Structure formats: structure tokens, C-alpha cells
């Protein structure tokens, strides 16, 4: 079987767009945290709203990644997204609890992880399942 030109499927596009929005949203979090600590009280509210937005997009991305796993037979986006969402959940609770020793480094790690996931999703096409026969040639 010859390989067709790899094209990203609609499921792949949905995943990419959600990951993009997710990345943009999460980068706002350190910004609001920083302005809050300069004494801007409203930034705390923005940081809290931002946490809700980031977490919500994270769950949508999980659904898209699960769909990608089923349709495209690619598990890694789902596993990676689940890891990020798990980190965000811990991050959310650590923030509420004021556990800054956890909240600040985990925040940096979560932003980094999501950025890497974004790059991985956009660097190569998210195509449909490939034929397995070639692999044993």
C-alpha cells in the first residue's frame, strides 16, 4: 500500500485549536499572578477566572484527544492532555489552599508541558490511522 499525503483530519484540527486556546489561556495565569502581587486586587479575580477557563478548556481538550485516540488511533495526545489536566487540577487546589511552594513550580511546569504538547500537536499532521502491514516489512 502506498502512503497518501498526510493530512490533518477535522478531529486533529479540533484538538490543535483547543490546545492553542488552552496555551494562550494558561500564559495569562502568571501574568495575572504577577500583577496581583504588585497590589492590583482585580488581578486576583482574573487569576481565578483564568483558572476556571484553563481548566474548562483542558477538559474539552481531553474530550477531543479521546476522540482522536478512537478515530485516529493515536493515544499520546490523550495521555499527554490527561497529564496536563491532572497537573492543572492539583494546581487549582494548591492555589485555593495558598500552598505556594507547590503552586508556583507546578505552574511553571504545567505551562511548559502544555507548550510542549502544543508544539507536538502542530509540528506534524494529525492524520488518520496508518496501515500496520508496512511495519513488519
Amino acid at each position, binding site marked *: 500500500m502506498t502512503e497518501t499525503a498526510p493530512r490533518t483530519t477535522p478531529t486533529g484540527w479540533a484538538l490543535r485549536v483547543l490546545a492553542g486556546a488552552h496555551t494562550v489561556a494558561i500564559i495569562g495565569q502568571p501574568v495575572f499572578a504577577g500583577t496581583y502581587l504588585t497590589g492590583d*486586587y482585580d488581578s486576583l479575580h482574573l487569576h481565578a477566572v483564568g483558572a476556571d477557563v484553563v481548566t474548562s478548556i483542558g477538559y474539552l481538550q481531553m474530550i477531543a484527544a479521546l476522540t482522536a485516540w478512537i478515530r485516529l488511533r493515536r493515544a499520546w495526545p490523550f495521555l499527554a492532555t490527561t497529564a496536563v489536566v491532572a497537573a492543572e487540577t492539583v494546581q487549582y487546589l494548591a492555589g485555593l489552599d*495558598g500552598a505556594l*511552594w507547590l503552586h508556583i513550580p507546578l505552574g511553571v*511546569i504545567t505551562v511548559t508541558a502544555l507548550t510542549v504538547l502544543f508544539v507536538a500537536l502542530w509540528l506534524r499532521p494529525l492524520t488518520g490511522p496508518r496501515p500496520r502491514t508496512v511495519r513488519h516489512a
Partner: protein
Amino acid sequence: MPDDITRRRLLGIGGTLGLAAAAGLTTSAALARRPAVTGTELRSALPLPPPFQVPLPVPATLAPAGASGGTDHYEITQRETTAEILPGVRTPLWTYEGTFPGPTIESRRGRPVTVTHHNTLPVPTVVHLHGGRTAPESDGYPTDLVLPAHWPQTTHAAHDAGAHTMHDPRAAVTRLSRDYTFPLDQRPTLLWYHDHRMDFTAPAIWRGLAGLHIIRDDAEDDLGLPSGARELPLMITDRAFSADGTLTYPSLDPTLRLRPGVRDPYLAGVLGDVILVNGAPWPVHETDTARHRLRVLNASNARHYELEAVTDTGRRLPLVQIGADQGLLAAPVTHHALPVAPAERYDVVVDFTGLPVGSRVKLLNRLGTGRTRDVMAFHITRATTDDSRVPPVLSTDLPSWRPSDAAVTREFSFRAGRTHGGHGWLIGGLPFDPARSDVTVRLGDVEIWRLIADVHHPVHLHLVGFRVLSRNGRPPLPHDAGLKDTVSLRPGEAVEIITRFDGYRGRYLFHCHNAEHEDMAMMANLEIV
């Protein structure tokens, strides 16, 4: 296959990043102070006594020197002395009337008091009655110095590198003595008086310049709360001792004459490794099986406490809070652990009824480690009957300002930063300058202030009491109840308070009551017009 190599490499990269992340979080968990602590602990160079051996002293009540025209008059001499704090060790102190804590002034609501303070110490002093509704000229503004006999008249005595040379044209400087007038037209509560000298407040309090001032009224007397020997003021402080018995303090200028500040490792606050209650190390108080009213003041420079009362069997006794900084709550609030920040007061009732004679109740500090976990103990030595009570309604006169009443909402950040002298602490991005007006409010206006902290900052407003509206945008915590004059901000925390600026026009202060932060510029002017 290339695909497999890529996959293997990706797994390797991912694994490395994952390990790095795990290592980072583990390091943070290991290095972090949990619970968070702001400040650095000094180590005593002397062997420390075992806990719960020294009897709890209760500061003597000062007798008035006289009375005239409905005003009681007191005399206090600020003087150097030597006291035995650790058993068998002589410790030089700066004191009010020769004792640490200084003598307690007992007064009645609305009956004015004049206190003449005589300064025989080697440095200038300033007396502030913390929590008092006091006219500005008696409020102890940091540049309103009382100079000792041999001190140059100029306010520019400090020309050294690092010293503040800021001139304050409004400073009211006197020599040798000063009359402070306290109208005390305010809710009954536990106040405290302490030194408030510009740049040198922390070491002066550390050396012993602190005392209690209690206001009472008939309504409070009639509540039936535990009283007499069962009402105990507890001034909690931490200190450290040098090998020669002197109090250790990391001053840049140990004479406290010229150069303010502490050595770099202590910029965030000075903590001691000995806990003193009413000036005694980890004391024990023999008492009976009855309710006790504990009037707790944290007079430590930087140490926070979270107090719990634990019996020999490990049971935590409820701490029933009846009052806050500015007097009685509307209704009692029950705590099992009570956080107390520097300068805060909590009026609590603890019930020893039914405890076996011979048993002990330890007052512990959940934020401490090692020896600083212990505070003091009660030794139950007698059975008794108790007719005291904690009524369900304690007061009905708490102000009920609503956010909609507020004329202005202001925001202040409390954070580390650069000051004229180097590292310091800033309010709203600025270091303290007596000549700058930071906040101007109209007499009688209600305002909401939003306070935001980077690390622990117990924020204190002079003149007024306030109520806590929220913490981090959520409802206040149980210990925020009542009328307060100092609110504890924990790292990253935001607190909204509401108050009415009434009483007097003039220049007041608000500042962080971590005394080291206060000395390192974390103060601001509050001008009431």
C-alpha cells in the same frame, strides 16, 4: 526504523523532562517552609531551661500617681535594668518602670489617662499605645522623639552611611520626658504600649519596651466572664540569648544610636528560639478546675503562633474566642487552633472544668518546630466550683459598615523591594517617608482597603478599628471576627477591610507590624482631614 528512533528519543526527552519536573517539585516540597514562616531564627548560646518549670508572672498593675479633673495620671520611667529571665542568668533589658513586660495600666472606658514617660535610656524613645483612639500628638508618631539627656538636639544626628537622614518638619521632639494623653473613649479591650521610634522599633521592643493597657466598662464587667485570678493576660514573645546572658539581636549598630537595620539574613524578620510568656520562658501556671479568660497578645517581632490547648490525654480543649483586638465579639466563636499574628490580641475562654487534679494543659504552637512548639502550661492543682459563664451575646455595639457606605476603595501591596538604604519593605511600591502624605481621608468617611501581601504581613492601622470583609475574595476566616486593628496577611493573600476614619484629624500611620519590616520602611502616612 527512523520512526522508532524518533519515538525512542521522544520518550527519552519526555522522561527526562518528567524527571526534572518531579525533582523540581520534590525539591520545593523539601525546602519549603511548611507551614510558611517569614523570618529567620536566632539560636541561643546558652543551655535553655526545660519547659513548664518557671511560674507564670502576671505584670503588676501600675498605681496612678494622682488624679485631677476626671483624669488619672501615671508616671513611667523608661530605664535600663537587669532581670533574671532564664533561671540563674542575668539579662540586661530596656524597660518601662524596671520590668518586662512593663506595668499594666488598668483603666475605665471614657476616663482619660495621662502618662508621663521619662526617658533615662541611652537613645531616643517614642511611646505608642497600640489600638488606642488617641489624638495625633499623643499617638507616638515615629519622629516625635523623647530625647535622652545626652543626645544632640538636631534630628540629623545620623549622618552615617546607611542611616536615614530624612527630615521631618512636623516632628515634635521633646527632651527627657513627655506627657501622653489617652482619652480611652473606646470599646473595652486589651491594648499594649510599646516603643515606636523611627528605624529602631524592633530592637527596642526586643530589649523589653512593651507593656499592657486594659480598658474595662460596666457592661463587660456584668457579663459574668471569668475574672480575678482567672483572667490572665498572656504577652507572648520570642527571644534569643547570648552566652553572656544578653538578648541576641542582629543589629547593624548594637548601640541602636545611628545605623538602623539588621544583618541581611534577618531582613524578613527576627525570630527567637525561646518563647516567653509575660517575660518568663515556657512558664507554668498553677490553677483550678474552672473557666479561665486568657487575654492573648502576640508581642513578638515577627513570630506567628497557632495556639492550641492540649490535655495530658491529647485532647484539644476548645478555645472560645470572646474578643478581638478592639474588644468583645458579638457572639463567641469556638476554635481548636487559633492563629495569632504579631500585635494581634485574642480574648479567649478555656474551660478546665472536669480535668483531673494534678493534670496539665499545655498551650502549644502548631507553627513552631522543636522548642518553639511549646508556649506554656497550666497545672491543675485544685478542684473548685465555677460560677463564671460565657453568654451567647457578648456585645451589641459592633459597627456594621456596609461596602455600599464606602466613599473610596484603595489598594495597597505589601512586598519586598529596594529602599534608600538597600533591601527593605514597601507599601504600594514606596518606602516610608515621614514627609510624604500617602493616604488622605476625610474625617468620618467609610473606606474599603484591599491589602495584598507577598509574604506574611500583619497590617496595623493606627487610630481606627476595622472589620475584615473578605480573604482572597472569599468570606473571612472564623478568627477574623469582631473589630480588629491588625490583620494577618499570609503569603500571597489579599484581605479587604472596611472602617470609618473618625475620632481625630491629623497625621497617623499604617504599617506592617512585623517589627523588622516596620523598621525597614514598611510604613505609610495616613492623613485625616
